[in-house]
């Protein structure tokens, strides 16, 4: 059986969640691997939520927010951008496959883009395979 990645998506209420909605109402298909969690703003997404999702069995985490300049709260996504940029660096340093974690922008009118971003990310995670926990890394050694 082919590996089906489990993906958690944190979508901002104002743009990306509406974008996902639009993808649905427009009948654009996208991989069913994503489990969407609606958040008020991409700026609300603490990277530890991603770590928690990984800990609970997610293979990939994607955060989608309004395009820079379009944030409903003016600046939430700028903060998200800084945080998640450095969080990426951190994952890289720990050897934790930064490709499993992604921040992108999807507006309320970009239903097609939402589907595209999710499809692309799903494929990327699928290629990586299941996330490996440190226990497995150690087990491997023996």
């Amino acid at each position, binding site marked *: 059986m082919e590996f089906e990645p489990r993906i958690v998506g944190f979508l901002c209420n104002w743009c990306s969640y509406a974008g996902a909605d639009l993808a649905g109402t427009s009948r654009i298909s996208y991989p069913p691997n994503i489990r969407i969690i609606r958040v008020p703003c991409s700026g609300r997404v603490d*990277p*530890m939520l991603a*770590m*928690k999702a990984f*800990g609970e069995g997610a293979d990939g985490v994607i955060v989608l927010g309004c395009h*820079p*300049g379009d944030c409903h709260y003016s*600046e939430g996504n*700028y*903060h998200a*951008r*800084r*945080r*998640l*940029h*450095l*969080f990426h*660096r*951190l*994952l*890289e*340093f*720990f*050897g*934790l*496959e930064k490709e499993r974690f*992604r*921040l*992108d*922008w999807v507006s309320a009118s970009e239903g097609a883009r939402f589907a595209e971003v999710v499809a692309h990310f799903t494929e990327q995670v699928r290629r990586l395979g299941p996330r*490996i*926990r*440190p*226990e497995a*890394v*150690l087990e491997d*050694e023996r």
Partner: protein
Amino acid sequence: MNVTDDLRRIARELLESGRVARVIGYEEGRRGQVRPLVARTVEEAGRLLFDERCAHNLALYLLDFKPQGGEEPPAVAVVLKPCDARALNVLVLENQVRRERVYAIGVACPGIPGKQACATCTDRVPPTFDILLGTPSEAPAASGLPDDLARLLALSPEERRRFWAEHFRRCIRCYACRQVCPMCYCEVCIAEKLDPPWESIAIAPSENEFYHVLRAYHLIGRCIECGECERVCPMGIPVFLYQRYMAEEVRKTFSFRAGMDAETPAPFMTFRKEELEKP
């Protein structure tokens, strides 16, 4: 080195005049090491000392003098090396400590022999002080990344993951690295929150990984690179490596070093519209 004599004299004056109620410094330990001392009296001030064994970051103890229940805590004096003074700046920036309630006794620091963090540190004079003791030695030329960090960065991601998994297996989550860190002042650490439970009580590699990623993330742009976390680790886990690396990334990306002053907003407090275009 007569920093000790000066220190004792100043501490006595400060206590005697009532300018401060406590002087946080170092005293001789029992087995050849030094240890922190919160001196209250002129007699106790006579036990203070400063020499090259004084590794502890005493800014940590300023957190014990935060206002409680509307009551103004006593003014305190504290002995600060350059990295410790950076910690004071961050605590002031983050509204944990009021600068005017602290009398900063800065000490010129030649680096603590054998301390990991000091190997590549070029700071010799504290960035903030009310009085400076000792004569600053000439700052060495910046020597780039420490060897162990460079070695780790040269590894493949898989090898790095293995490296950390090995260490996380050993971690007992005694939280010494957190407790010793002046920047880790949360009333309830997310690692110990019960509701919702962010982290399981299990002391096991996955949970330990979560904890270390968490700690590294929470200190981005805030770590003042004193390296106390690694020094106190009983299990020999190189926890300072990731802090040091992230400090380097912050410096590269935002031209920022935490605690060089108490005004410049830290990277996560601010943003620029035109930056990091590729998310």
